[in-house]
């Protein structure tokens, strides 16, 4: 992974000093609350329902074991002993004290981490495929490009006070596990006619109040122009994006208003005009960053059959929670943060430390966080899988449900988030209670369930095969259901609302009915979302809104 040099270290150290001073001035009353707000947000610090919330950046989801141990220590010493992994691969703490945040940032800096630009109207953490570097279908590793973008975006002199937040995702595989089409900018690694690596550039995708799939504005961008082109996009956005209405301020609104073709022209014109002053990404710098992402020293191994003769439990786990690796004899292991009693994405300090130990012992000391709020040990020898499974089982991190309905995404919702309209954690618990039979879950198969507590869509409900959105109906918590969304690649689509929202306690029953329709109607190995696409919303709708006695 990328290791800071002296320059990188100095930036994070000086950021800590800067924030310490800002906090001091705020507490002393010489820095106005509104101004401090804009500044603390740029360090990931929100003031939430119960306490401040601190969001720590995990660039493209990659962490070294010593970083994970530090996250555990912070959870223990400054929070209530746990952290929450978000859909942007970051980790959030829900109970730190404002005065202690500079100390937390200092601890983070000591292991080359930070909270820079994890919030606020600036360029946010750049995300990538969580199987980057190990996925068999990958064209090129997105992470070096993410790191280059991270550095370019850090404290950018011109683009640190944008109309609204700005999210970039990079993906190196056609499967697009980074959901690049629903980002402000999506970069897909492609090859041109001459076989050279470059980027397809998408712009203006997003979720939230106005969900929309991004538009391609450049089919091939050469790496040397990467930062220059991003500069051009950001400049057009910085000048043209709306600042009068927070709900209309994302780049997608600008792209929609002028039209993607015109937007493309504007960016191209800006790009051409700025040739003299734009940053050039040199081969030397690309090579320098890439040298941090060379593959680890894999052993020469053959794929082996580790499931025959093994017990059911292990086999289930192997099938659901491990993934094919591009190197023979290895598998990528998904550490499930979705066991029934656990709020999705939550992990305790002790569990984090155990995962760090396992990473050291079995996976080159690295851990990854995913968009769906799990962790990954990406490079486990197949011969070690059983030991890893046992160790994970002992700490409740081996729930064999990855990719199934209970591997649901949920934002923190009303329990913790001050913007929420409705709770998500209760609903998640109820769903877990209703769908507690693994065989049934396996029969249902791959199903992405995503839940957000409000229109801000942190739980990405629009792109769930089933999406659940919390809404506030005269002070009561209700839930709107969408079907048929998908975040990935060619498949990317926004879900369709099935009808009026349902009451809190009816959510599990509603899911049950949706699943029944699917099970009756599916052909062969069709996934839920495929059946939905084939038969449309009507049969689902009819069943969901049927009176109880006719629903079965």
């Amino acid at each position: 992974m990328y290791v800071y040099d002296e320059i990188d270290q100095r930036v994070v150290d000086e950021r800590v000093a800067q924030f310490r001073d800002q906090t001091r001035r705020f507490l002393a009353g010489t820095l106005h609350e509104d101004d401090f707000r804009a500044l603390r947000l740029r360090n990931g610090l929100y003031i939430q329902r119960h306490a401040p919330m601190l969001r720590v950046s995990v660039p493209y989801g990659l962490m070294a074991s010593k970083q994970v141990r530090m996250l555990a220590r912070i959870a223990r010493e400054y929070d209530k002993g746990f952290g929450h992994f978000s859909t942007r691969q970051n980790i959030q703490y829900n109970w730190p004290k404002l005065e202690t945040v500079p100390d937390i940032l200092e601890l983070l800096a000591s292991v080359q981490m930070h909270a820079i630009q994890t919030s606020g109207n600036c360029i946010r953490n750049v995300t990538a495929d969580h199987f980057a570097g190990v996925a068999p279908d990958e064209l090129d590793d997105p992470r070096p490009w993410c790191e280059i973008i991270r550095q370019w975006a850090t404290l950018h002199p011109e683009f640190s006070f944008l109309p609204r937040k700005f999210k970039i995702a990079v993906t190196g595989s056609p499967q697009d596990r980074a959901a690049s089409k629903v980002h402000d900018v999506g970069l897909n690694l492609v090859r041109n006619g001459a076989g050279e690596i470059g980027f397809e550039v998408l712009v203006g995708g997003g979720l939230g109040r106005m969900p929309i799939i991004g538009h391609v504005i450049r089919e091939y961008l050469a790496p040397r122009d990467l930062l220059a082109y991003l500069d051009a996009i950001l400049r057009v956005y910085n000048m043209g994006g709306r600042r009068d209405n927070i709900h209309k301020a994302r780049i997608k609104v600008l792209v929609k208003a002028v039209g993607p073709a015109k937007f493309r022209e504007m960016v191209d014109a800006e790009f051409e005009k700025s040739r003299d002053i734009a940053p050039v990404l040199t081969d030397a710098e690309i090579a320098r960053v890439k040298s941090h992402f060379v593959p680890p020293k894999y052993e020469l191994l053959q794929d082996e059959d580790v499931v025959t003769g093994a017990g059911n439990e292990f086999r289930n786990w192997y099938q659901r929670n491990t993934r094919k690796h591009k190197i023979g004899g290895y598998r990528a292991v998904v550490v499930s943060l979705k066991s029934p009693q656990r709020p999705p994405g939550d992990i305790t300090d002790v569990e984090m430390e155990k995962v760090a130990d396992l990473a050291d012992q079995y996976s080159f000391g690295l851990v990854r966080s995913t968009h769906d709020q799990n962790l990954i040990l990406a490079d486990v020898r197949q011969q070690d899988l059983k030991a890893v499974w046992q160790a994970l089982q002992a700490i409740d991190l081996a729930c064999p449900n990855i990719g199934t309905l209970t591997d649901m995404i949920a934002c923190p919702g009303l329990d913790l988030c001050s913007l929420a309209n409705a709770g998500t954690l209760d609903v998640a618990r109820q769903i877990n209670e209703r769908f507690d039979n693994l065989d049934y879950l396996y029969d249902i198969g791959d199903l992405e369930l995503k839940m957000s507590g409000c229109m801000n869509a942190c739980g990405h409900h629009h792109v769930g095969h089933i999406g659940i959105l919390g809404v506030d109906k005269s002070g009561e918590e209700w839930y709107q259901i969408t079907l048929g969304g998908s975040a990935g690649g060619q498949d990317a689509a926004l879900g369709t609302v099935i009808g009026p929202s349902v009451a809190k306690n009816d959510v599990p029953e509603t899911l049950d009915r949706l699943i029944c329709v699917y099970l009756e109607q599916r052909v062969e190995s069709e996934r839920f979302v495929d059946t939905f696409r084939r038969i449309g919303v009507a049969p689902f709708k009819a069943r969901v809104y049927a009176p109880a006695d006719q629903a079965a």
Partner: protein
Amino acid sequence: MPQLIRQRKFVADDWRNIDDDPTGRERALIIPFARWQAERDQWWLWDGKLGVRIGPTDAVEALERDFLRISLVAIEFSGIGEGRGYTQAQLLRRRYQFTGEIRAVGKVQRDQLFYMARCGFDAFELPDGADTAVALTAFDDFSVKYQDSIDPGLNLRRRAGT
């Protein structure tokens, strides 16, 4: 009275806004963009120094032909969330090679100065009551920068040959 930082020092302001000094007694006037557009010819031969004050939606390219005459551009900020002025300064300095003073005016606060200076601002009007004790250190909040801008960024790394 706002307090002016120029070239990293607090200095007395030798410029006046035209509204405060309609006849230009101080021989250095800042004229709002719209008025400058309308009265350009009439001011051109005046014997004082001229500056233009622009808002976030005013196009800096319109000033390019005026650079012979104007020696200051004041860029307005309505608050910390206003970010267009950074681009305006950047373009003035780097694309259009304006060499006069670029001044940040309006609701300017200490923690923006680092970014502003890197975009080409060299003068800053801090509002009345601003905490001047901490302002001048803002330019040194960070000793290294990733981006090339007015001052070199990533170049550091290239030079070091790492």
